[in-house]
């Protein structure tokens, strides 16, 4: 209840709402600041090439991609199954611009490049969003996004001269020194992504999105332009996902459909992360990302080293997790806190 009241109150302005924060929210804020400081200092504390830093790096990437999905899937209720397409588009944009030297900037971790890597997926989102969101019911929208993503995969695989086909493209090597710059950029971008989703959902836009996710007909009858808000969340979400795709390509130095468009890693996991952590919440993707990346790195690296067949355990486990979550905990882990503490 107070969540909804808070929303109504805070939709009148984000800054005003900051001034009115309660003690509880101030505590949250302090915890967040401390966490950020700790994360920021982590490479100095344990050495920048440690596995834990790599682990956190992956966590931040998944937080970012999942927040992008969260905006359209969690807050607006439109299940997009095309996340991997936006991720790959962002990566390919970076790769192609760098390889062909289109903008004459310094390319490696270039903000302009990363910005463009967000814009191209956003354009793609507009193209597939317009027909699918305007006419199609929820399930069909999901298939539409999935089909569009697979069309993209086929185009990438077939246009070998342009996109490198199945083997992919190699980035002209920049200066990969250590994991440091990746880690901090990922941390910064994850914070920005979370902040963006936070601001959007606390604004009037967020109110509209939530209304749409709960009851479209009712929302429309209250004068909300359904298509516009759905498109807005879809496009902004895809922008965020694309930027993280660019970051990931900087890390891999190689891009091909097998690594950038794997269904389980880049389509299913962001979705699972949001649902496990709590669909339509801010903290949900963060919690979910920590859990799922732990599962994933453990399954891939630890179990996989023992026996390659065991590396299949973690996708099976994630399938099982999502079934269990949907059956017994549909509000996700973050939603559990509402169930435990009684509402006044």
């Amino acid at each position: 209840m107070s969540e909804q009241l808070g929303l109504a109150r805070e939709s009148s302005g984000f800054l005003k709402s900051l001034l009115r924060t309660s003690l509880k929210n101030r505590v949250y804020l302090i915890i967040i600041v401390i966490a950020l400081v700790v994360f920021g200092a982590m490479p100095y504390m344990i050495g920048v090439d440690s596995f834990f830093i790599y682990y956190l790096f992956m966590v931040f990437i998944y937080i970012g991609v999942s927040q992008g999905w969260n905006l359209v899937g969690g807050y607006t209720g439109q299940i997009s199954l095309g996340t991997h397409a936006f991720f790959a588009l962002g990566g390919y944009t970076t790769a192609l611009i760098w390889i062909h030297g289109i903008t004459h900037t310094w390319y490696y971790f270039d903000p302009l490049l990363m910005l463009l890597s967000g814009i191209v997926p956003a354009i793609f989102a507009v193209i597939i969003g317009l027909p699918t969101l305007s006419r199609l019911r929820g399930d069909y929208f999901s298939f539409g996004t999935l089909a569009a993503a697979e069309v993209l995969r086929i185009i990438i695989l077939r246009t070998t001269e342009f996109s490198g086909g199945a083997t992919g493209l190699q980035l002209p090597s920049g200066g990969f020194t250590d994991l440091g710059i990746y880690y901090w950029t990922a941390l910064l971008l994850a914070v920005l992504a979370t902040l963006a989703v936070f601001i959007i959902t606390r604004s009037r836009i967020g109110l509209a999105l939530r209304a749409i996710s709960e009851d479209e007909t009712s929302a429309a009858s209250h004068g909300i332009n359904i298509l516009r808000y759905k498109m807005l969340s879809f496009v902004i979400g895809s922008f965020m996902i694309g930027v993280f795709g660019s970051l990931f390509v900087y890390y891999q130095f190689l891009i091909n459909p097998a690594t950038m468009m794997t269904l389980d890693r880049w389509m299913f996991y962001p979705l699972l992360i949001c649902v496990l952590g709590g669909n339509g919440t801010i903290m949900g993707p963060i919690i979910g990302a920590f859990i799922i990346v732990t599962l994933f790195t453990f399954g891939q690296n630890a179990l996989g080293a023992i026996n390659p067949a065991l590396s299949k355990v973690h996708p099976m486990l994630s399938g099982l997790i999502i079934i269990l979550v949907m059956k017994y905990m549909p509000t996700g882990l973050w939603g559990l806190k509402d169930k435990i503490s009684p509402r006044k």
Partner: protein
Amino acid sequence: MGLSVQALVNGILFGTMYGTAAIGLSLIFGTMRIVFFAQGSVIIFFSYLCFWAFSLLGIDPYLSMIPVFILALLLGAGFYYVLFKEAAALQDRISSLLIAVGLMFILENFMEVVWTPNPRSIVTSYGFSIITILGTNITLVRLIALLIAILATAGVFIFLRKTLIGTAVRATSEDVESSTLMGISPNRVNAVAFAIGIGLASIAGINFATTYSFDPKYGFDVVIKALFALTLGGIGNVVGALLGGIIIGVIESMASFYLGMGWAQGVLFVLFILALTLRPYGLFGGASQKA
């Protein structure tokens, strides 16, 4: 006759398999508004079961079809009661879609662990004898597959029209609340629908195993095309789903023939999107489309 006619015929035969899968999807979606995304993986799972029966025990796939079909019916009911009962009751689309996707991941990876990612197929001794009809060559297994698919469709059609349970299934597809007011137990109807859906998957699986090679990841491909067939056929329309499947099989085959396999997939997906946007109620869609 030319090679293109050969491609057409192959497309029809292949399409009946998509159609069989689509009928199952149609039943499940019609009664419970659940998109059973794991259908493709389930089909491949049954293909592997038949493969096992054939290679380990030497049982002819068409003989193993009967116990496998019965197993599939039970499995379908089991899926419903264990996984989908709550989601069906709440008509929760997101939940059911995600549960189905989760099941797909479990199945795919399970199959990959147990049977390895290498493609398999069932090759029987009599399978490749060629029958020539109207100048085109058809292998015996494909002809049998076509016959089985048609028989299965007819069977389901008769079941839905002539039996009491079948009528209950149809009624629930049209209007769940009214059906419960009429005294129809939704759980039982849903379980029956699921059972038939998985049963049809097992039939498609056997057909698939005998005619083509398959690997664990192929299920995803199959389910997308089955969904496409379902979209074309219109929800709740059994014959429409089969026809939709055939159309897709033909398009895929002809596009493969003229453009090559890779682009054929692309063409298919683009057409899927177009069909979704332009005619979401299907080419043969009926009147009461509670979409």
